[in-house]
């Protein structure tokens, strides 16, 4: 097929046409969005690409229909003694002077509709089914192309979805899709394309490819996100600082704080990478002053309240750390004495490292201690990254509100033993980027551990289809 599928996105003013396009195209910079009439006054196009870079579908963002009543009058006035069918009537209207003056904005929409293979009619379903909307639907039928109504804002409590479905059925529009442009739903997007597929026989193959491509893309996205988190957790779990025994308490505190700072920086790096991965620009977030930095997200990793917020019971490692660190202040709560909490695994820690055994034994004899991030801090790190990824998976590219984090106390990671791979990482300083002097990324065992952990984390992001 040489011709590409073109779909005009139409609707009343301020129903979220541009938002729909932003979400479908994953491009948060497309067009302009604001809560007022006629934000979009021009026709702007965007092509959806397959992962091989080939365009498969062109979506046209059109200005809103603002005065359907007047437009319908103008269209009906054209009839006169002769009877024209819908498309002819629209053509004659477009040739009339009205199309260049009072209804210039509407004329743009109709012109694109006539040139398109189908139209998506965006409905703000919080609105009652008013006369003007019914008139719009009549005008759309004049263009004689398939129309797929999309109910936006279905997630809102003010939604009147049932009323709208009934009205659409009355004008013979039975294929309707509920798709919130702000609360992204992968299944909703797929249903939208499936519906278009059933309406557009001639474009069955490209739409099928698009559906398959988007499915694979989202799988890839999940996996890539899970792998980011696996890397972060392995790096953090394996990170260790050896501090000489005769260090002054103040110097010791400084060293531990420096280690905490490195862990925080590593987390921030992952957050930045995740935002980029999901195509939400960092600039945008800083601009909006996201709580990612100063609200719930900004809650300090080594803060006891943060632990409680994520439903992690304080005990075990953190308590032991607090007890062992009696001479230290509360800021060190997140870091515990390595050997103290590792117990029987201590020998393994001594043997399983490439810091020369001789030196480590020497260190040990001279009272040096190893400092690692506590188990509970790891749990917190994991849980809040999971909830960030979940929030990103559900975020439409039209969303303007800040990212909110949710706690999920039922999560497996909040209690119970940490995964085997994480525990293993505790004993492998070479696995951590935080130990640059021994870090070796090409190690086979690290790669296998990252793969395993990725699979486990992936299970956290499975959404019901």
């Amino acid at each position, binding site marked *: 097929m040489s011709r590409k599928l073109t779909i005009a996105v139409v609707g*009343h*003013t*301020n129903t979220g046409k541009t938002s729909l396009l932003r979400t479908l*195209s994953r*491009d948060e910079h*497309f067009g302009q969005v604001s*809560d*007022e*009439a*006629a934000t979009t*006054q*021009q*026709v*702007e*196009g*965007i*092509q959806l*690409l397959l*992962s*091989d*870079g080939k*365009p498969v579908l062109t979506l*046209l963002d059109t200005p*809103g229909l*603002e*005065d*359907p*009543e*007047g437009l*319908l*009058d103008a269209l009906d006035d054209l009839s006169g003694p002769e009877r024209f069918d819908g498309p002819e009537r629209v053509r004659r209207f477009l040739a009339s002077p009205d199309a260049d003056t009072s209804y*210039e*904005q509407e004329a*743009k929409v109709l*012109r*694109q509709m006539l040139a398109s293979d189908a139209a998506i009619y965006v409905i703000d379903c*919080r*609105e009652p089914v*008013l*006369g*003007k909307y019914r*008139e719009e639907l009549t005008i759309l039928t004049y263009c004689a192309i398939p129309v797929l109504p999309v109910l936006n804002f279905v997630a*809102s*409590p*003010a939604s009147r979805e049932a009323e709208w479905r009934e009205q659409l059925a009355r004008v013979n529009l039975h294929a309707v899709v509920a798709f919130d442009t702000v609360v992204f739903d992968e299944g909703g997007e797929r249903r939208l394309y499936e519906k278009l597929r059933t309406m557009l026989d001639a474009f069955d193959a490209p739409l099928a490819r698009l559906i398959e491509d988007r499915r694979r*893309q989202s799988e890839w996205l999940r*996996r*890539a996100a899970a*792998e*980011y988190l696996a890397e972060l957790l392995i790096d953090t779990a394996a990170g260790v600082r050896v501090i000489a025994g005769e260090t002054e308490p103040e110097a010791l505190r400084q060293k531990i704080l420096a280690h905490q700072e490195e862990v925080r920086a590593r987390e921030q*790096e992952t957050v930045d*990478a995740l935002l*980029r*991965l999901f195509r939400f620009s960092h600039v945008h977030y800083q601009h909006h002053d996201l709580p990612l930095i100063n609200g719930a997200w900004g809650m300090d990793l080594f803060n006891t309240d943060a632990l409680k917020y994520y439903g992690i019971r304080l005990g075990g490692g953190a308590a032991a750390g607090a007890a062992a660190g009696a001479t230290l202040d509360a800021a060190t709560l997140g870091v515990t004495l390595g050997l103290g909490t590792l117990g029987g695994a201590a020998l393994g820690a001594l043997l399983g490292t490439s810091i020369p055994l001789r030196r480590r034994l020497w260190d040990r004899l001279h009272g040096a201690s190893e400092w690692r991030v506590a188990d509970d801090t790891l749990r917190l790190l994991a849980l809040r990254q999971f909830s960030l990824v979940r929030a990103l998976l559900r975020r439409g590219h039209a969303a303007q509100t800040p990212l909110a984090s949710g706690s999920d106390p039922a999560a497996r990671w909040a209690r119970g033993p940490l995964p085997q791979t994480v525990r293993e990482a505790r004993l492998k300083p070479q696995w951590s*980027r935080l130990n640059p002097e021994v870090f070796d*990324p*090409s190690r*086979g065992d690290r*790669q*296998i551990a990252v793969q395993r952990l990725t699979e486990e984390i992936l299970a956290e992001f499975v959404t019901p289809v």
Partner: protein
Amino acid sequence: MTQPRHRFRDRLVAEAVRLEEDRLGRILDDPAAEARAREAGGDFEHRILYRAGHLALGRRMESALEGLTQARAWLLFAILLLSFLAGVGAAGAVFGRETTVNILVALSALLGLQLLMLLFWCLLFLYRPGRGRNQGGMLGRAALASLHWLGRRFVHRPESARVVSASVGLMRRQGLGRWVASSLTHGLWALFSLGALLASLFALSVRQYDFVWGTTLLSEQTFVLILGVLSAPMQELGWPVPDAALVSASRIGMTGGVGREVWSSFLVSAVLLYGLLPRTLLALLSLVLARRAAGKLRLDTGLPGYARLSDRLDSPSRSMGVLDPRPRGQEGLSAGYRRQRPHPVAGDVVLIGLELERDIHHWPPRLAGVEWTTLGRADERTQRQDVLSALRARSEAPGVVLVVCSLARTPDRGAERFLSLVRESTDAPVWAVLDEGTRLEARGGDRALRVRQWEATVSRAGLAYALEVDLENSDHPGSRELVGLVGQDRARA
């Protein structure tokens, strides 16, 4: 756009670049390379390879790879030469100074070990203990490992070290390492066999040997059986093989020196048939399979190092820009509304409802202290016409016409046109009463912004006044103002 086929080398370079960037902890910024990769099109992997090839680091990696390939070729040559010499040595041990050659000892020296290793290789290949690891024969694995070990020890440039690590990583995938190690194993043994064969031929050509056999533990039948099994394929090929008479004549203690040609031909044929030939074939087969695995190998684009590039190189959409520009002179639509409080009015108060959210049972609204006449709701085309004709039909102009608008609606040109029509249909002042702000707030809208939008619309429609009220709440300041302006006791005010 057809996508050119990529070579294994390109992927190796991309892997090396990824490892270096992983180590640095950041993506190297090179907008030029990224732009070229985006223009190159194709799938994500294609763009990654394109970018890696056009990075300065990528070019350094390529030159490092060049050097390593050369070094590897020399090393490979040395290993192969060594194993050839080992074969020569084995033959030398068999055909030493003694002029009597024990057939069993010769067979086990020239073939025994490698047949045993072949069996071992087959077993490992079938069972594959520890899936996901590369098994390509112990010799091959050891050779690969030593190559990498040597690589790490003797490579000083960091680029070369990254290339070595990248190749180790790629060897773990798609069974590639297994086939590479296999071809090495079989290649080494093939060279060993070749060395043994050539040395044996040389020794047998220039010296004379007597061939004997003997056994203490095994029965004579066993020896005959082994010989039979080994010589059956040769017999098929029509090569000379020792017959029963020759076998019994060659036993130690019998008259020596019989059937020299037959025995020597048998030994040489055995090395050829059970050493050189199968090993060469297996080496070639492994090489073909290794090449195929290398050809099929794709980068794991889900790795963080590559995923990080996705927003630079890959895009699920491409903006086509503005196809039909905005109408001229429509920019900056919202004109400011001058809020000028009118004086209280006398006469009838006429009410029109425009696209309200409240249902028809709550119409007309009640506001204590105000009496009004409703002309109805103007939600539909016909209703609007009715309302307008009713307004025109009034013999006497009312004191004021109030159009109740809903703040839950986005003001549009349709509403603006209706408001203008109302204004044109009466001599009375027309005011817009903006209600239902609470409903807008309930769905998370910005009330103040919406009021400003309506005021702009009202001003464009040429209406005298607009005020925000809450008709369900008589304490709302707007409602009180309305009562003050149009209420029953206004005469006193």
